[in-house]
């Protein structure tokens, strides 16, 4: 069995930030990721990030990804790619399959889970046809793989993911025919919807997809208006000429590893569903296991990076790498930056939901 001080699972924004912080404090860090390239969703995020200068605002996600990776290299962080974490036993032993070929168990003093989230689905007749896909899948195709999955797009869901991916599909050369939103109001930031709208994309609130049709692939979609009980209103059906339907119906924390390891669950509808309970320092009910990013509740990359810093620093502190004073200063600064992101009309609810998790007394 191999041994490491800190094992970080997931090399997205949260995991990378956690690994960097723990390594800066002096811990030996192993960062594992199932993909062949690190960075998680960052390398699909070709837009400029919000926030303040300290959050690297105004920098594109792809460039933040590159910066974080360069830093990881400078700090000699050990990175295993094509490495899938399949289980955690006895609170310390991480079962990792490398290159789909070989199992390795790594005994870690601290484990930081930064496994991210998985896209929710919306089910309607025809949703399993080729051409219906997660908005994230479309984003992966256009921004990572540089192929357009379709020319005529219907986007389902108007949260930031749906809107940003709509914009990026336009940038990639596709035609977004409509964005439908089941709620009576659009979900994402107004500045995002505004840039998609002025590109000529119509938004349909209180609308949903009724059906997708096609033989081997989507050839058209029917949308319909919903009444105030979210039931379709007969006669309001509209047929759209689309070849691709992207689903952006929110994300669910990818919690399997945490719960299979025995971390206590807590339900937080606002943050995407079941999340592992954690305290302010990002530690779970199993003291050797920490969380960072969407696994602890779905937010966005900037928050994930701050949570990663908090988790990495806390793990290093618990191993004795930093003194109390330094820890308090560093942690408080990260927490302050994070709370700044959890403010305003969009952030306050998340701030309250997070506070409810941290404040939830166990047992």
């Amino acid at each position, binding site marked *: 069995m191999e041994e490491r001080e800190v094992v970080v699972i997931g090399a997205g924004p949260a995991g990378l930030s956690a690994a960097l912080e723990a390594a800066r404090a002096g811990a030996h860090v192993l960062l594992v990721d199932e*993909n062949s390239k690190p960075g998680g969703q960052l390398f699909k995020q*070709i837009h400029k990030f919000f926030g303040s200068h300290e959050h690297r605002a105004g920098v594109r996600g*792809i460039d933040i990804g590159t910066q974080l990776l360069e830093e990881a290299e400078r700090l000699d962080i050990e990175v295993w790619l094509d490495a899938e974490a399949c289980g955690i036993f006895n609170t310390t032993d991480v079962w990792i399959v490398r290159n789909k070929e070989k199992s390795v168990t790594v005994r870690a003093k601290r484990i930081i889970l930064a496994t991210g989230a*998985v896209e929710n689905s919306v089910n309607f007749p025809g949703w*399993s046809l*080729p051409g219906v896909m997660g908005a*994230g899948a479309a984003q*992966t195709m256009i*921004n990572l793989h540089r*192929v357009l999955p379709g020319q005529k797009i219907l986007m389902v869901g108007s949260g930031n993911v749906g809107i940003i991916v709509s914009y990026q599909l336009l940038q990639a050369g596709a035609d977004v025919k409509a964005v439908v939103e089941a709620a009576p109001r659009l979900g994402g930031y107004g500045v995002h919807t505004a840039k998609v709208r002025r590109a000529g994309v119509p938004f349909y609130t209180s609308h949903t997809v009724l059906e997708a049709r096609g033989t081997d692939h989507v050839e058209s979609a029917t949308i319909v208006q919903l009444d105030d009980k979210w039931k379709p209103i007969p006669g309001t059906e509209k047929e759209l000429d689309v070849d691709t339907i992207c689903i952006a119906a929110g994300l669910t924390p990818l919690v399997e590893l945490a719960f299979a390891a025995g971390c206590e669950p807590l339900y937080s509808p606002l943050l995407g569903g079941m999340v592992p309970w954690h305290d302010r320092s990002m530690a779970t009910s199993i003291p050797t296991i920490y969380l960072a990013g969407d696994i602890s509740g779905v937010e966005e990359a900037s928050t994930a990076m701050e949570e990663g810093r908090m988790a990495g620093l806390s793990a290093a502190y618990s191993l004795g790498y930093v003194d109390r004073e330094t820890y308090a200063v560093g942690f408080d600064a990260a927490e302050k930056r994070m709370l700044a992101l959890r403010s305003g009309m969009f952030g306050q609810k998340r701030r309250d939901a997070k506070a409810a998790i941290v404040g939830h007394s166990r047992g």
Partner: protein
Amino acid sequence: MQRIIDHPVLGPLPEVKMVRIIVDGESLMAREGEMIAAALIATGKKYFRKTVKTHEPRGIYCGIGRCTDCVMTVNGIPNVRTCVTPVEEGMVIETQMGYGVWKQEQ
């Protein structure tokens, strides 16, 4: 269904070596290192497999190896996730019907 040759943020598509893949018997070119699914989308392939029970066509859905809807038979091995498996020179890729068939080499 096409490659994105130029992009306002990502810039022009970098030149890479092309490799030959065989898709349902047809010889096609793909960009070295790209995922099978990307190579097939670029050629306009409409579906990657048909399901076991209802013989429905399926293609990519999650795009990151989680949902396993995009599986095909690759080099004789069924159920290969094409969205996370890179193409290789000479790779034989087949639309998978149901759970596919084993390559009979014994």
